């Protein structure tokens, strides 16, 4: 129902520039996740889209129409806040009905919508309660319900899962994803958790210091990170970064070890290897790694070792039952290795 486009959007708080200048297009029905470390401007960006935060410069368009001056209500957005921001003095029903009331909807229609949403979210029995009588998860649902009943053109989520325990978080994540597929509304979701981003997003927008680092599908940002920041931020455990010198078809580590990788040029670079892209090699070949720490995860095992000055993590098959102190040898999958410019951090292709 609404595509959103940002052109040259800037945001300053006094002298502090939070968002320098930003362009972004979000398609109708798209589920977009803004991700980045805290303080990267992702929440500010969301609040700009919501209309809670005026822009310092630039233009904001909803469905092609300039929206800078529009209030949140006029933009027809709904938002789920990090702390849910339920109205404490209203019952669940009243909380959900409030926004509709503001739109002068008839009682009957309000009732119908509230009940429908409550049914969908399985919070019907709680309609008469006040927020203080609800558990965290229930409050979260009410917050979603409050957003849903409005039938908004854009759904905004500001880290809505951060107050939930891990198990519940996974469950709600799935629910939101399912909801988005059912409602087919544009959704923007802000999180600092890259797992949430990866699992839910149609497209991920990675932000750092107010600047978009990369926009792409989860696969794209994972497999083809645009720069060292994205590469390091997406994926857990994080990508390993090793300073190397490029030679033809190989890179040489500081200690002289040479590793074969594709796409090399010449000169210094940063080699980026995800833990799962280390490949066990026969003794004497590749990188000799004396294990410092072994973390069995069940499905696979993480091993920590030093490669020169850099601490690395590799993912190995659990059957190998590595032990600390043991020396393993690794090479990297040549086609999965990433090379980044030492200065700019940009991916070298």
């Amino acid at each position, binding site marked *: 129902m609404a595509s959103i486009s940002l052109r040259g959007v800037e945001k300053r*708080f*006094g002298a502090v520039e939070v968002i320098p200048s930003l362009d972004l297009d979000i398609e109708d029905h798209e589920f977009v996740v803004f991700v980045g470390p805290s303080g990267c401007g992702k929440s500010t960006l969301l*609040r700009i889209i919501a*209309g*809670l*935060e*005026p822009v310092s410069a630039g233009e904001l368009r909803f469905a092609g129409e300039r929206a800078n001056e529009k*209030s949140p209500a006029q933009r027809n957005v709904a938002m789920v806040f990090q702390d849910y921001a339920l109205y404490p003095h209203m019952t669940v029903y009243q909380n959900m009905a409030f926004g509709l009331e503001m739109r002068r909807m008839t009682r009957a229609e309000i009732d119908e919508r509230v009940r429908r949403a409550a049914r969908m979210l399985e919070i019907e029995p709680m309609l008469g309660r006040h927020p203080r009588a609800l558990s965290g998860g229930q409050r979260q649902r009410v917050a979603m319900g409050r957003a849903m009943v409005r039938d908004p053109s854009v759904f905004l989520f500001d880290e809505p899962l951060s107050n939930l325990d891990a198990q519940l978080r996974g469950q709600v994540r799935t629910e939101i994803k399912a909801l988005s597929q059912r409602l087919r509304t544009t959704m923007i979701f802000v999180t600092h958790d890259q797992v949430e981003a990866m699992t839910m997003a149609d497209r991920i927008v990675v932000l750092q210091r107010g600047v978009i680092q990369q926009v792409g599908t989860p696969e794209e940002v994972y497999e083809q990170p645009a720069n060292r920041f994205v590469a390091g931020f997406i994926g857990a455990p994080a990508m390993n970064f090793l300073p190397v010198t490029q030679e033809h078809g190989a890179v040489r580590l500081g200690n002289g070890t040479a590793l074969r990788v594709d796409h090399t040029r010449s000169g210094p670079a940063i080699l980026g290897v995800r833990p799962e892209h280390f490949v066990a090699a026969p003794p004497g070949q590749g990188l000799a790694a004396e294990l410092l720490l072994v973390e069995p995860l069940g499905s696979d095992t993480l091993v920590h070792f030093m490669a020169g000055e850099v601490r690395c993590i590799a993912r190995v098959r659990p059957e190998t039952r590595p032990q600390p102190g043991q020396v393993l040898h690794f090479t990297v999958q040549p086609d999965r290795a990433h090379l980044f410019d030492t200065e700019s951090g940009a991916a070298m292709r």
Partner: protein
Amino acid sequence: MSTSLSSRQRGVLALLSVPAVGFTVLMVAFPVAYTLWLSFRATPLGHASHFIGTANYARLLHSADFWNSIRVSLLLYVLSLAMELVCGTALALLLFRMQRMPAILRSILISPFMVPPVVVGMMFLIILDPTIGVANWVLGWFGIAPSAWLASPMGVIPTIALIDTWQWTPFVALIVLGGLQSLPPSVYEAARIDGAPPHRVFWRITLPLLRPTLVTALILRSVDLLRFFDIIYVTTQGGPLNASNTLNIFTFHIGFELFQFGYASALAVTLTALVFGVVLALNQLRRAVAW
């Protein structure tokens, strides 16, 4: 947070303050300007006043009575304020803890400030009379020697501070109670689960969270205490020997007993400036403790 408002919202919010500020300015500007004007003039009673420059201010700066009144005002201010804040917070906690106390009892516990201050003064004049007062009579049961209370130059300020504390502790308590009731109970619960003993919860959690409310109490009491008047006016009129002659009492004497309106205006302006300065400083505190 303030920068997050749109210009339209800012406009509406600014409009919300306009009636209050406008009303105050309308009411206060003329009297203050008038007093300021008068403070530079000599005002022979019943005759036209004339400009005398800063002579009234020079006079107060050279007046021992003025400096004495500043000292007395500040002493009384600090003493009363400290007692009222401590007792008021304690009373508020008590009321807060005893939620099920009947409304009537709660109301009576906060009622001293509902008694007109002049009556309070008259009442304590008799209760604290060294010879026929109940206070010494009761203290006598416990073998405590009679005290001169309001009649001792040394004791008068503490005594007045005590009376004022009796009257205004409930006021502070009520404000603090309001603050306590808007604190999230989950914080206490969290702290209790963390195993903090009650007094630690108070010092580490409750009190810091109460700071904005305490600053409100502080400011509201400060403006009144620095202008201390009623009880002294009724009981000692500034005596004995000027020992309770606060700046406001002194100003009143000059103005409405001696009818020296020019000089009294200079004193009133000075007192206003003093209160204003203290309030500005306390307001910085308000900003500093906002959470």
